[in-house]
């Protein structure tokens, strides 16, 4: 079966060779079968954006030395040159869309200290904050609540007005889309654990943010979201850093400790249609302990330990397992709480959204330069003095394990709020580890194995199948579904190694995981005995930090049929696209600063993209 799928790749590639392509209307070259009528859907384009970024209006960003205001953050994202501490900075390429997501708790309070003559800077607490600087980050939520001056300062900063205005000022339909947004910063049962959600509004106005002081329970956030929708404003919440949640983001239980029920599952799926799978604080796809047969599972894993831990919690903290658990929950209560698409982001706290490995700014950036240097470079590479425990008893992450930024890709009709928000809601999205890899996946029952050779394959796929983020429609008769997958490299980045399809199927009270190589660059084939494919190679020169696109492919495409399909069992499919190896940010930074490489992280990585999944549910 797998040999067949590999042959299909080859067939598709060969058949795809001829064709005249252009950006103006096509001249007729030969009589062709009538293609399906083009719909708005088939004209959808990939737009790349940032969905998670902090500015000086976030408490922790200010304590990290950030001075960037939302207005500057948007200017930088659009490709304008901005001046940061006297240094001109410009993004390598302009983003198509962005949402600044400052923490809603005490939003704007500390930035008041930078406003000349501000009220807060005259108070004892304000002076304490100035003196604490970075250490102010360690104040607990309770400590902050006991300082009314902080709430006063937040109010005086008129932070929410500033956020709404910046988002609206920079929205240029057709060119650059913004969303009014914020981050709700709830902690879990473990002090410091992440249950945070970003909240995005589809409109030019929005009610004031919900904060973790209002409630720490996601169920209460959903009530807020549901009430906002009743006012006619579209709104969604997106969770992130499950990898740092100590098993709580994808737990089996509700906030009150009871097992999930149907209402909870439905509300979660409705209010949280997406998950941010990759960002600065690591990836949340899976990890080697959970996916022992996935040789690419060890990617940008941040090992964050909480008080008294020697090993991070693995279960309940990763997306792949959540897709499996979602089917388990659905088999019991009739609804799938973990039915989400995938996005990526930076979660940078310096207000500057960069996504390239060589523009790694991270949270620990030296605010004087775009790239850390000197002692800051050492600190960023984890070579500085060991940081003391946080007051929660939690050790600091090893900074070198932090990742460069991820990106969100959406397939949308236009670069506008309504169009991109609709794409987010229908989960026609993908995540990348920072590269502009374009990826598409469609599921259907009748795709022609040679579909990808057709110039109109996208229109046909929409007309006869469903895009990623959807449910497979009911099958006419019992046969295996087919998936049309396509990926194209970042125009300024590395070639592609392969496309994989990751399948999770319900097995009793658990789930089974399979990873299939479905499209390969070069002349490689899947080994039918092992199910594995040889590595693509590695062109990275570790002396110069460069690589060559002499291996890999600029595009990959295939129609793949599930060789192990069981029509009685629910299943989830999502695509993962791998690039050829390139130098990791830590390698580039070490080379630039004449510092040694750290052994705890790889010198090269295979950047990647993840599609949103397609779900199959047996009938009846």
């Amino acid at each position, binding site marked *: 079966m797998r040999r067949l799928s590999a042959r299909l790749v080859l067939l598709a*590639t060969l058949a795809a060779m001829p*064709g*005249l392509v*252009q950006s103006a209307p096509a001249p007729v070259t030969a009589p062709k079968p009538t293609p399906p009528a083009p719909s708005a859907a088939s004209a959808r384009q990939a737009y790349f954006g940032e969905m998670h970024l902090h500015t000086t209006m976030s408490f922790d960003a200010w304590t990290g030395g950030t001075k960037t205001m939302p207005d500057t953050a948007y200017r930088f994202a659009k490709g304008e040159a901005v001046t940061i501490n006297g240094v001109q900075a410009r993004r390598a390429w302009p983003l198509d869309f962005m949402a600044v997501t400052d923490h809603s708790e005490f939003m704007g309070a500390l930035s008041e200290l930078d406003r000349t003559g501000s009220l807060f800077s005259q108070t004892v607490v304000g002076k304490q904050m100035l003196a604490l600087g970075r250490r102010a980050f360690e104040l607990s939520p309770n400590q902050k609540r006991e300082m009314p001056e902080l709430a006063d300062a937040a109010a005086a900063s008129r932070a929410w007005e500033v956020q709404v205005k910046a988002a609206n000022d920079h929205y240029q339909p057709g060119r650059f889309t913004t969303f009014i947004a914020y981050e709700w910063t709830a902690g879990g049962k473990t002090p410091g654990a992440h249950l945070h959600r970003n909240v995005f509004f589809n409109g030019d106005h929005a009610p004031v943010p919900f904060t973790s002081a209002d409630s720490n329970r996601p169920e209460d956030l959903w009530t807020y979201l549901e009430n*906002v929708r009743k006012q006619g404003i579209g709104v969604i919440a997106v969770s992130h850093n499950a990898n740092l949640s100590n098993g709580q983001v994808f737990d089996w239980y509700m906030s009150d400790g009871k097992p999930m029920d149907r209402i909870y599952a439905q509300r979660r799926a409705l209010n949280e249609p997406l998950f941010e799978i990759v960002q600065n604080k690591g990836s949340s796809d899976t990890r080697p302990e959970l996916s022992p047969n996935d040789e690419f599972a060890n990617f940008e894993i941040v090992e964050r330990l909480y008080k008294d831990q020697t090993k991070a919690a693995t279960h309940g903290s990763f997306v792949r397992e959540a897709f499996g658990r979602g089917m388990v929950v659905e088999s019991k209560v009739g609804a799938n709480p973990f039915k989400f698409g995938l996005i990526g982001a930076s979660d940078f706290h310096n207000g500057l959204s960069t996504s390239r490995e060589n523009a790694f700014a991270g949270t620990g950036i030296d605010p004087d330069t775009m790239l850390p240097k000197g002692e800051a470079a050492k600190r960023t590479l984890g070579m500085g003095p060991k940081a003391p425990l946080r007051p929660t008893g939690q050790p600091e992450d090893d900074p070198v394990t932090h990742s460069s930024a991820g990106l969100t890709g959406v397939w949308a009709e236009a670069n506008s709020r309504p169009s991109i928000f609709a794409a987010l809601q229908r989960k026609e999205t993908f995540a990348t580890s920072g590269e502009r890899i374009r990826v598409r996946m469609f599921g259907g029952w009748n795709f022609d194995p040679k579909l990808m050779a057709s110039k109109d394959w996208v229109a046909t796929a929409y007309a006869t199948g469903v895009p990623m983020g959807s449910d497979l429609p009911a099958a006419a008769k019992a046969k295996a579904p087919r998936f049309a997958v396509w990926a194209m490299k970042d125009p300024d*980045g590395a070639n592609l190694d392969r496309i994989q399809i990751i399948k999770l199927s319900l097995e009793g009270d658990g789930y089974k995981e399979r990873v299939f190589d479905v499209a390969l*660059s070069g002349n490689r084939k899947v080994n039918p005995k092992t199910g594995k494919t040889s590595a693509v190679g590695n062109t990275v020169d570790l002396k110069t930090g460069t690589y060559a696109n002499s291996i890999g492919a600029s*595009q990959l495409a295939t129609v793949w049929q599930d060789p192990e399909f069981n029509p009685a069992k629910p299943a989830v499919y999502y695509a993962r696209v791998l690039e050829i190896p390139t130098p990791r940010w830590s390698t580039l930074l070490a080379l630039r600063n004449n510092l040694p490489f750290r052994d705890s992280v790889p010198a090269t990585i295979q950047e990647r993209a993840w599609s949103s999944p397609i779900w199959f549910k047996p009938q009846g």
Partner: protein
Amino acid sequence: MRIGSQLRTLSASPTLRRFLAEPLLHFAVLALAIFLANSAWREAHDGRRIVVTAADAEGLVRKYQTQFGVAPTPAQVKALVQAHIEEEALFREGLALGLDKGDEIVRRRVAQKAEFLQQDLSVPPEPSEAALKAYYDAHHAAYAAEDRMAFRHLFFSPDLDGEAAARQRAESALARLAGDPEALVTGDPFPDISPSALSGVSEAVRVFGDSELPRKLGAAPVGRWVGPFRSGYGWHLVLVRSRQAGGVRPFTTVREQVRADALRDAQNRANARSMAKVLSRYVIVRDDEGDAMGARR
């Protein structure tokens, strides 16, 4: 009147006349009058009376609604009103104790309120069409547009036969197209990843990467195939069919942006003016500077 006639009657008695001339009596009457007036005033403005009007309650409900996006339940309204009453009582206690004096927070908050008031008072008027046009003319550079092109391209992918062979195929194709730009020549498939047929260089960079192709596209001749140029994906031949000069975007299409820019500029100027006006009412004595300068000297 009646009091007057009574006084006249009473004035008949010398004792009474003496009594009426007594300053102590004048004082007592005056005190009584003040006391009565004060009681009447206190009846209406009692520092010990907290009145919650319907408008107050409505305001509390509205504030809750803005914050939570939903109307409060009757129990929540009750709690909101109770909290309002308690805050009012504490506020008055604080005023009575003079806690507002010498407090940095209060001082700054009052100053800020005055500042907002000033700025709100100086909202610039809606600019006239003539003023907008004048602003647009004075800031042409801000409203410039890129040249836009309609073009065809043929793609030669290195995926199948490598970099050199792909380039070679592109060059052979160019030779065939030299005589006839519409000759039937095919390249490799290239997906439709551009949202419009008309493209500026920045859109071309978005699609093809920061590479040779978009840069050459901007200067390519109209009506003739040129190349091969490298993009982020492979080799391309390009035929620019038409080029639309960008120039300054017409006023009608950027009117809204001009209006926003003009208003923002006007508001900034107005804020500066109103601050200057406030300062003009004061004499600023900078003893600190005199000392500092003296020290520097």
